[in-house]
């Protein structure tokens, strides 16, 4: 699990527009669902955090046991989320 990562680009109205699962480890069957759920929930945190800092890379904003969510926010408020 630790070696897989999920990368999602979220548009400014919170719609996922690109999604990729990367990594070599065998995927869990529910990985997509799990990742989506975690990343979606992380949007709550992003919405609070994005306005408090001028930095674009928000580093790890959320942890879900082994999964760490990192976010890069562009100027146009498009998010790149990794976990």
């Amino acid at each position: 699990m630790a070696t897989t990562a999920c990368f999602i680009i979220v548009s400014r109205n919170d719609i996922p527009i690109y999604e990729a699962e990367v990594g070599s480890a065998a995927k869990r069957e529910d990985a997509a669902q799990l990742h989506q759920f975690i990343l979606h929930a992380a949007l709550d945190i992003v919405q609070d955090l994005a306005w408090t800092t001028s930095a674009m890379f928000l580093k790890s904003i959320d942890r879900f046991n082994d999964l760490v969510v990192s976010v890069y926010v562009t100027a146009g408020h498009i998010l790149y989320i990794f976990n």
Partner: protein
Amino acid sequence: MTNYLAQFQTIKNACDHLVIAVEDVNDLWPTLKSRFEERLPFKKGFLNNKTRNSVFVENLHAEFILTTDARLRSRYPQEQYLFWFREPYATVVLVTCEDLDEFKNILKPRLKLIVQNDEKEWFIVFVSRAHPSNDQATKMAKKVYSKIEVDFNSRRRERCCKLDLHGTEPKFWEDLESKIMECIRNTLDRRVQFYEDEIRKLSEQRFMPVWNFCNFFILKESLAFMFEMANLHEDALREYDELELCYQETVNVTGKRREFGGLDHGDDQAALLNPGDKLLTQIVQDDSFREFEFRQYLFACQAKLLFKLNRPFEVASRGYPFIINFSKALALRENILPFCMREVWVITACLALINETSSRYRDGPVVPDTEKEFCRLQGDLYSLCRIKFMRLACLIGYGTDIEKSPVNSASLSMLPWPKPAVWPSVPPDASTEVLAKEKMILQATPRIKHFGIQRKPLPLEPAVLVREANRRRASLSGGNMYEILDGSPNFNDGSGSDASSKMSPSNKVQPTSMSRTNSSPGFEGSIDRPMRLAEIYVAAEHALKHTISNPELWKTLSSREELEQKYLELTKGAAENYHQSWWKRHGVVLDGEIAAVCFQRGNFDLAAKSYEKVCALYAGEGWQDLLAEVLPNLAECQKMLNDQAGYLSSCVRLLSLDKGLFSTKERQAFQSEVVSLAHSEMKNTVPLDVSSLITFSGNAGPPLELCDGDPGTLSVTLWSGFPDDITLDSLSLTLMATYNADEGGKALRSSSATVLKPGKNTITFALPPQKPGSYVLGVLTGRIGHLSFRSHSFSKVGPADSDDFMSYEKPTRPILKVFNPRPLVDLAAAVSSGLLINEAQWIGVIARPINYSLKGAVLHIDTGPGLQTEESHVIEMESYNNESESSAEMENHGHADLDSSLAMNKYFKQLCLLDGKIDFPDWASDVTSILWIPVRATEDRLARGSSSVAPQKQSIVDGMRTIALRLEFGVSHNQIFERTIALHFTDPFHVSTRVADKCNDGSMLLQVTLHSQVKASLTIYDAWLDLQDGFVHTGQGDGRPTSGFFPLVISPNSRAGLLFSIGLGKTTAEDETEAIKSDSILSIRYGISGDRNSGAHPPVAMKSNGIESVGEGLIFRSALVLQRPVLDPCIAVGFLPLPSDCLRVGQLVAMQWRVERLKDFEENEVPKNNDEVLYEVSANSENWMVAGRKRGHVCLSTKQGSRIVISILCLPLAAGYVRPPQLMLPDIDEANISNSPAGPHLVCVLPPALSSSYCIPA
């Protein structure tokens, strides 16, 4: 120093406020005590904090204690130092004295003794007992007091104040308070300095072996405690924070293995808010404290101070990470701690923190931003608590009740099982419980998803519990042999374990590694047999019961109902708080969990509402994977609630999700639900938005272009997201005009049932004529059974492959363009003038299509008055090739070889006129063609010639005829073009005459000039003149010109002349018999050779018979008027001159005529009353008013030369040059009247003279 810990603890517990010592020199205290204590606690004051900044403190608690009190006396000096914080902060010296000598001798030395101790902060209160009425005593008291002031006040500091026992001295108390405060401040400063020095000293020894954390702790906490007593909570908090850091360092750095703690009964209940949970002496260990208790203690102290500072938010915000960190610390010691200690501790810690902070928070001030954050923290705490609670529930077998939703799965599936050193084993007398659990496992049927969705439930377990538990069992842990699952019958000792194995989650993983036999020694006996799931549950339950000391908490885990209740409470708490903190996603997700519980309880209404929220969130943000998980649940609720509209809409939404999210079978199930419901007994038609499922777009390429008024066929691409073919009972599509958004779209219907295949479909709609403009597709509506659906979106989610992919089409792209009305065809006459009248003539009608097909066109012909079509003749139609036009077309089309192609495509057809209609042949649909219609213009009147005497007033209107044409064309004859063509018909000649010469013999030469009126050459074969009465041909001719000149050819628009010799003659007897001819008739036999393309041409009928033979047969007749000259005037009428001054409007004038008889009337011409002459004055009534008799007889003798003057009064009515009245003699032939002198043609009439009478005053 460690020895002092117990003492320190006691002291700390005993005193929680500052102490002020009272040195009662003169036994005044008993009387003053109550008045002093009234001042407590001190309302306000300023103290210095650790950084020597002045801090405002309120409600400072303190206690006055006499120095003689036991509490202050019996202390060893060392003790005093160590626990200096409890020593008095100020010393009040109460004195009184009424005598100066006494003061000098006794009191002063005593006071000096008291205050000589530098350590003390003191001041003197002089109490005057003198009564105000007793002047002497008062005076003395004043004296003594001033003496005291002199002796004890220093320059820098006043140390005295005076209290009048009998007087009212409000200033005294203020003074006292400020002095006390000053003392406290000074003492505090000194003590802080002392503690700080001590702490520094100790800190420097930190890395030495003698270092003892307990000593450090006592000093540090003493300082903190002192600050706390002085209400300097901030500083106290800082001390605790430093203490915590220091402790962390101690714990981490020193490699000593210490006991962790947490093994006592009741330790499972978090004491993170209860500093007095355990005595410090209990938790001390060597030179430090046990981590488990001490960290909680420190946090509790911090929390206490934060609550005092009214900062519950900070408690929560520090508490959450504390719980997380502490939980990690617990995890490290899981093997020594009781089973599930960590989970239980977290649950109790969270609940304690939630309860305490929220209750305190509600009392405190609320800042919006903090409130949000606070709620978020509460939500986090609830959520954490909820997860741990679920984990416990799973462990004791209630996992099946927990909804396998993404949130639960994400939380639990990555959270490892507890890792006790040894997994608890089944207690010996628990067989009934095991049975009960097994029964429960059996009964628990996994919830079957609606629509038969086969989906592997999301896991709630990080690993298979059976395996995990057995692995950790003491007897089996050695070889890790029992990676075994209970699928193998070898291990089943009956009693329903088969069934349990089937139902247990472990059966997901097939026992692939089961080949190992189990015959190794030491495995016999029930203790060595791997535990079954039910046994694990029971064992865990017993172990938990042992761990959990709080009966309330145990109760929540004891039964399914209680568990569900607690679960719901925690979930609701988390959801509400997340909602309040605007973490809507977290909140809504938990709403979904609440919905799941509601659903299980059969409360479908609430469940549906919550599920709707979740679906709306996921759908709104387009997270389809997550939506796919929840939407079936919502659909199921809606079905239960019989909410057909909602259910249908959910089905449609399910269908419109990504194809990959559901299998084809499931999608087919959705569709069949929709279809069956649509055709079932629904009361009302249900509207349904299928925008996401059925999308439409126009075909690629340019929009369909139509001319105004034309119907058409519109082809539209429909994309069906249904997995199977679906039959639409009806379908209609609205077109929206882009020019006018207000106007509702026009619906195009396709009433017959349409079957939509999955994917791309092309549907054609019949398009009735539309208004000009461009149109876009609007809304697609239709019906499936009772279901009326509606879609208004273009395809967004097209399938990926290029064929079916419909681009993101902007709705503004027009699908249809209807052009503004424009001429589509032109009808014109090829030749419109100079056609022969009274003859059958071809008229050419040029039909020119203007970029529009005339296929199937019908021409209606309606001739106007005086014009008939020759119905007996066929109508000819041929393609028309006009030079100029063809060249223009060539330019347009750029076809160099157009001429030749046109020449090749020369068409010709004969058509029949049926009911005034002609059908166009097909070839005429797109080429300009000409129709030759045979018509005949009739004219009854004879042409009249003109003469030089009487110039002919020939009107062109006489020959005008009209023909109305109506062309119906277009796809359904919807286009109509109407035109009325004016045609001018004419005689071939215009004849004018003049007398060329009067011969001496009385004959005249009459010149007849023939003007050709047509654009065709005329050939005259013969001409003759039938003379009127009174004229005869002279000579022997029969009135014909010399025949040798014939045939005479007259070119178009040229003239020819004929000469006739005629004379005046009497009527012959022959002539008498005929009717009296008033006109002479000129007859001309002629032929015509002309082209119908340019004008007059041989008549139609002749053409068919042959031009040569019949061309001569045309006869033209023209009447000529020959007038006899006035040869014998009988009467002369003369106009007498008018008066010399001009005529004016409104002025009467006498018009006078002289009538004179020139000769006798001939007998036959004389009327009976030959001496009377009839006259008549004719005048234009607009210009003249005749004042006399207009008509009458005047007497005129028949004798030659008789004359008479006729005078008529006239009144001019209009100014200008007007024609004067004329005198006529109706009885007498004009030929016999000679006008001499002739009257004027025009007379001048002036406007009326200006009347000045109105302007000049009388």
